[in-house]
């Protein structure tokens, strides 16, 4: 009987099954595939672990960086509060200072008028109310200085405190998340220095002034104690006082000066107008002058008038000492146009001498050989003074025959310079008597309002911090990986060193003022950003 014919697959299977070498082939295939599978499985497990390990470390670093950024942003907003409160208490101080000065000025007008019953009533009100006003003044000064000192100190240290607190918070949360062996460190510039060390006191005082001027404070800083004879003076003083109190050098000069001859109200309005730009005009270092205070203006006019009289007297003596042969000369030199013809003086006598000017007077006297050109200049200067801001329109042109050069010499009194100098010194004396500084070096605010140390704060490296997370790779994973490496390389490869090394994973954040075009705070001027509580944080790629 013949068996049916088998297909080729049946024949191949029977041949493999009955082959005497099949067992050996199967055994080698098993060994090879088994080793390969173990290797692949091990690598797959270590790869999964390491990816989670990496993501976990990045997560910890992200948390630490955002925590640092958020806490610094909060510190920045707290600093803006410090600045706003500091500026807010300065406005009331301006008001109280101005009202006290106004009271003194009122008393200076009213009290000497002993025969005027109304004025005597005002004087009596002054005497009764001044102690209260003075007590309020001293209190507000002390309070302002104390607040500025305390809040300025807080601004200087709060970022360091916030940074250390943030890291403590992050580290304390790690054991709860099962990663107690994770190490967190930070690169934060606030731990090594004051990142809010900038001084923006001029801006703070400017903001206080802008807030105070249209407010109810000027003239009403405390309950009415007496009738005010100088209606516009409190507001004018509030416009000027920032320059006085906050320091002439730092404040700039927009609000200073004024014109001596201008009326009180006009002076006040010019000061108010000038005040709007004083903060941005920091380079101006005009000395402080208060022509609006009647006693200062009056003293200044009197002093300059006396000096001019001294000059006139000295020149007259010099003329008298000369021995004019022409009887018509001499005494008329001071009048008219002030230019006397040389022929009026004739020859000098033996005792002829020039005028002697005191040290106080000399800076304001300018003498020169008389000529038609000089006379024209003097005439021009005189006419300018008549229409200008000088203390008066006195004729200040005097001539005499110089005994040395034997030439007619004409002298002028520099009334403008005298006015400026005396106004400055009288203002300084007045301010000192009122307990106020007269220059920036005398200014004592007790502290300052602050801005970030780096003026370009939104891009500054000092306003960024980075956090670094690291942890050891699990030792079992390292051992598995090393064993797999050995198996796969048939014993040729040694243990891995990269897995046992400690790697750091970085994440960074910045804190900044959102002045971008689409932000609601895009219109905030740069110098006022440290006064607006809108600072925020954002992750960044790294520090610069």
């Amino acid at each position, binding site marked *: 009987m013949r068996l049916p014919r088998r297909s080729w697959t049946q024949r191949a299977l029977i041949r*493999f*099954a*009955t*082959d005497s070498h099949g*067992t050996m082939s*199967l055994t080698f295939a*098993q060994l090879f595939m*088994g080793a390969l*599978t173990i290797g692949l*499985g091990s690598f*797959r*497990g270590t790869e*999964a672990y390491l990816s*989670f390990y990496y*993501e976990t470390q990045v*997560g910890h670093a*992200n948390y630490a960086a955002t*925590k640092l950024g*958020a*806490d610094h*942003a*909060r*510190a920045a*907003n*707290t600093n*803006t*509060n410090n600045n706003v*409160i500091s*500026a*807010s*208490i300065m*406005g*009331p101080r301006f*008001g109280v200072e101005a009202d006290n000065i106004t009271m003194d000025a009122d008393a200076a007008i009213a009290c000497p008028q002993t025969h005027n019953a109304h004025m005597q009533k005002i004087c009596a009100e002054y005497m009764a109310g001044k102690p209260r006003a003075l007590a*309020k003044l*001293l209190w*507000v000064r002390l309070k302002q200085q104390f*607040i500025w000192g*305390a809040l300025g100190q807080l601004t200087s240290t*709060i970022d360091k*405190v916030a940074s250390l*607190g*943030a890291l403590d*918070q992050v580290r304390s*949360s790690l054991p709860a*998340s099962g990663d107690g062996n994770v190490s967190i460190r930070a690169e934060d510039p606030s731990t090594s220095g004051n990142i809010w060390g900038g001084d923006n006191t001029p801006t703070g005082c400017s*903001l*206080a002034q802008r807030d105070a001027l249209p407010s109810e404070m000027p003239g009403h*800083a405390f*309950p009415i104690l007496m009738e005010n004879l100088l209606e516009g003076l409190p507001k004018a003083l509030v416009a000027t006082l920032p320059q006085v109190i906050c320091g002439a050098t730092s404040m700039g000069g927009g609000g200073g000066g004024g014109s001596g001859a201008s009326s009180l109200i006009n002076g006040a309005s010019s000061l108010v107008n000038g005040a709007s730009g004083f903060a941005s005009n920091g380079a101006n270092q005009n000395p402080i002058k208060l022509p609006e205070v009647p006693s200062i203006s009056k003293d200044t006019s009197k002093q300059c008038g006396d000096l001019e009289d001294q000059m006139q007297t000295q020149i007259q003596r010099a003329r008298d000492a000369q021995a004019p042969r022409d009887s018509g000369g001499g005494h008329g030199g001071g009048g008219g146009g002030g230019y006397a013809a040389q022929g009026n003086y004739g020859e000098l006598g033996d005792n002829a001498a020039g005028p002697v000017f005191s040290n106080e007077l000399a800076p304001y006297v300018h003498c020169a050989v008389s000529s038609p050109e000089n006379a024209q200049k003097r005439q021009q200067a005189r006419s300018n003074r008549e229409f200008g801001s000088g203390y008066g329109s006195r004729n200040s042109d005097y001539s005499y025959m110089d005994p040395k050069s034997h030439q007619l010499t004409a002298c002028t009194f520099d009334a403008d310079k005298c006015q400026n100098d005396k106004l400055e010194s009288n203002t300084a004396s007045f301010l000192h008597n009122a307990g106020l500084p007269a220059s920036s070096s005398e200014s004592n605010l007790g502290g300052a309002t602050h801005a970030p140390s780096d003026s370009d704060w939104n891009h500054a490296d000092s306003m960024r911090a980075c956090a670094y997370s690291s942890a050891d790779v699990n030792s079992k994973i390292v051992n598995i990986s090393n064993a797999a490496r050995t198996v796969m390389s048939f014993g040729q490869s040694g243990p891995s060193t990269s897995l046992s090394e400690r790697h750091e994973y970085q994440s960074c954040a910045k804190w900044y003022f*959102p002045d971008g075009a689409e932000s609601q*705070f895009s219109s*905030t001027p740069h110098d*006022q950003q440290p*006064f*607006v*509580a*809108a600072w*925020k*944080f954002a992750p960044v790629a790294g520090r610069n």
Partner: protein
Amino acid sequence: MMAPGKKWRKIRGKRGFSHVSMTLEAAAVMGWFVVLVLGEKYVGDATSARRAAEDSVEQSSVASAMSYCAGGGAGASAGSAAAPVQGSADVRQNGKLSISSVLSIIAGLGLGSQKSFPLYTEPFQGAFATASSGGVTPHRLVGEGTHTFSGNRNLACLEPPKAVSPIPDLLSYRSSIFDTTVRGYGPNP
């Protein structure tokens, strides 16, 4: 023609798969491979599940923190079909500035109602997000029941701005200071 008994004796005498021990060994190797393949699937599913959970947590925590910690975006993403993910995020207090000494100093100024004043007093906030896979069920040859994987993420909160306008708000602070202390209605000399 060969007798039937002689035929089986001839086959039994052959080597290779015809031997019982060889057949059992081959079956064991095949079974081992099956287990390994299923294990690979199990590891793959587990990896995908945990990765989906981690991604979801990351997205949730960032979204929560960046939306003023008001819970916006707190829900976890759906994850993959093989590894569905559920998650949640909440806002927790997370530290506080230690400035109590300054608070006592400015307390006498009558301040506290201003909108930006709570910057001195409010605790910090952080978004803590948790997400977990809905359950990965491996083949019953590998293990019984479902296995879940969870992930946690912390982030600090982004606070909404406390400023009321783009320009410094001195009026609210100054009016309180002026009324309370300078005019004499509050603590004064």
